[in-house]
């Protein structure tokens, strides 16, 4: 296990390096830097002053290594636009995104497995068709449109749910309000992963219930409930766990759109601000953090995987 973790740690360092190189060079070489978003009436001298103040007159390579040098000490620089430390700005927003994505994963996994199992066991029947059809709809309808329609229905017409914001926090926090604010964003964000989990569960379950050990379980005198939900589901879960690891990056990019629709002040809205303001340090900081989140969540998925499937336990 320790060897496995060390191995993964090494891989993660390399991955982080590659991701930061690509991002850093891409944003710095793209036309229009921070000066491009200055007021129209700023003079060339003023623009030059800004470039020098921000150190953008240095070659990109020099700047990259300077950035890496600071980053390894935990200093991700200062935001160009707000003069606050990047780390602080991210730390302020990250919890909201984690909230959103964690709830979405929990909801999608539970709902996805239930719907997938129903779909598999009722193969070819009405329930299966309804679930399949809804999955296709969920996958193909753009989430920004669906989000607006939900707002129209639940906030404007029915007035049941708040249309935007993260709800009262701190001293005014109340659980009901929190859930009400989370409901629509979670639902919309889950359309990016839920259909995949449903379809994966369905095919995985169908494959497993025709296995020989299912027949063995029945021949022992197991109740049909035990056959399906202990013997079959436990095996069907294995590939589902690995697909969750694959879906996490998609979830994070989906969060950008979802947060924008619902005014959810997480890292998704922050990255839009950063990109619009050509805020290089902030963009880099968010990239690093998101990459870390993906790496860590995939590591967690692999550890869970090895717990569920005894055949991979001695993988290290």
């Amino acid at each position, binding site marked *: 296990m320790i060897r496995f973790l060390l191995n993964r740690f090494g891989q993660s360092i390399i991955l982080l390096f590659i991701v930061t190189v690509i991002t850093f060079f891409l944003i710095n070489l793209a036309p229009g830097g921070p000066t491009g978003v200055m007021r129209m009436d700023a003079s060339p001298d003023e623009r030059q002053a800004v470039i020098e103040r921000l150190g953008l007159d240095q070659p990109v390579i020099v700047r990259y290594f300077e950035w890496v040098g600071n980053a390894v000490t935990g200093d991700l620089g200062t935001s160009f636009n707000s003069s606050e430390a990047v780390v602080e700005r991210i730390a302020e927003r990250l919890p909201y995104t984690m909230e959103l994505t964690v709830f979405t994963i929990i909801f999608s996994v539970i709902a996805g497995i239930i719907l997938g199992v129903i779909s598999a066991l009722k193969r070819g029947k009405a329930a299966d068709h309804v679930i399949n059809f809804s999955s296709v709809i969920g996958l193909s309808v753009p989430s920004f449109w669906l989000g607006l329609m939900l707002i129209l229905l639940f906030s404007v017409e029915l007035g049941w749910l708040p249309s935007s914001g993260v709800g009262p926090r701190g001293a005014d926090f109340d659980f009901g309000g929190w859930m009400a604010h989370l409901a629509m964003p979670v639902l919309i964000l889950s359309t990016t992963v839920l259909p995949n989990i449903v379809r994966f569960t369905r095919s995985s379950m169908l494959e497993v219930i025709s296995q*020989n*050990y299912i*027949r*063995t379980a*029945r021949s*022992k*005198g197991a*109740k049909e409930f035990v056959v399906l939900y202990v013997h079959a589901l436990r095996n069907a879960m294995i590939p589902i766990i690995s697909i969750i690891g694959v879906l996490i990056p998609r979830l994070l990019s989906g969060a950008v759109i979802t947060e924008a629709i619902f005014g959810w002040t997480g890292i998704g809205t922050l990255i839009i601000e950063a990109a619009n303001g050509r805020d290089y340090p902030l963009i880099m900081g968010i990239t690093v953090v998101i990459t870390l989140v993906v790496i860590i969540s995939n590591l967690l998925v692999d550890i869970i995987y090895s717990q569920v*499937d005894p055949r991979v336990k001695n993988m290290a």
Partner: protein
Amino acid sequence: MLKVEGLVTGYQGKDGFVRAVDGVSFDIEKGETVCIVGESGSGKSVTSMSVMRLVEFENGEIISGSIEYMGEELTTKTNEEMRKIRGAEISMIFQEPLTALNPVFTIGQQIVEAIRYHEPLKKKEAMDKAEDLLTLVGLSEPKTRLKQYPHELSGGMRQRVMIAIALASKPKLLIADEPTTALDVTIEAQILELLRKLRNEEDMSIMLITHDIGVAAELSHRIIIMYAGKVMEIAETSDLFELPHHPYTKGLLESIPKMSGARGELLPTIEGTIPGVNQMPEGCRFAPRCSFATEKCHQEEPPLQKVGRRDVACWHVEEFTASQVDPFHRKEDPVESNS
């Protein structure tokens, strides 16, 4: 103890309903070992799955006939009622030991599960019993094995575990569906030896399904020869080997390799292949491959009839047996050139 009569089991296939087992009758006495022998596709596995009422879970259906176990009719039982019989009264071991065990549970968990479905034991007691069962089936280091997963064991060991699971509740009838087919020859011999030992010590009936008549010869009291979903011959093992009453049985016996054969001599085989389920010939199903077949064989299906101590389904039993006793008879028989 087990009495199967006129069993018809079929599957809903792409081109309509197919009858994999078509009117099979036989019985098994207490303490008796009966082998069902036949080629692949003869319906022998479906017969065993019908007795366990497991065919329903695999798109199959028992159409008609009766399966009587200890005087109780099994075909009309609900799944819940069958559940109490499966594993407790009738147990089954399967052909594929490599895939028959659930990969995510330990050997111990899987044996304990089988024990506790039919016996209200505590986990700890059941574990001790599982250890005894593993010792009974001849696995070394049973304590370690209990904590291992199926992938850590070899095929032969897994089949022993399957047997331990099957024996968990002291069944009165053990159905072994090609238990050694997937194993290599030395392991096959060990498993057969184990079955023989269990048969003698545990006082249970065994229904052994095999395509290998040699395996049947070693273990069984009686042999049922099946072909294309029908019973061809049922006879005491010694009788059957002494004088087969059905041309198909003879073909099977002749295709056993002999130590006395000359080098380079070809092993006799039965010409042709078993008919597919949707293209059953009219009349006797073996007729197209039978060198004794006459017009009648191609038109009318022979019923399973008592001939002395055995049952045979052949229109020409007398001529056929006579031809074997008196070799000259066969040479002069004009019937032979018909095919």
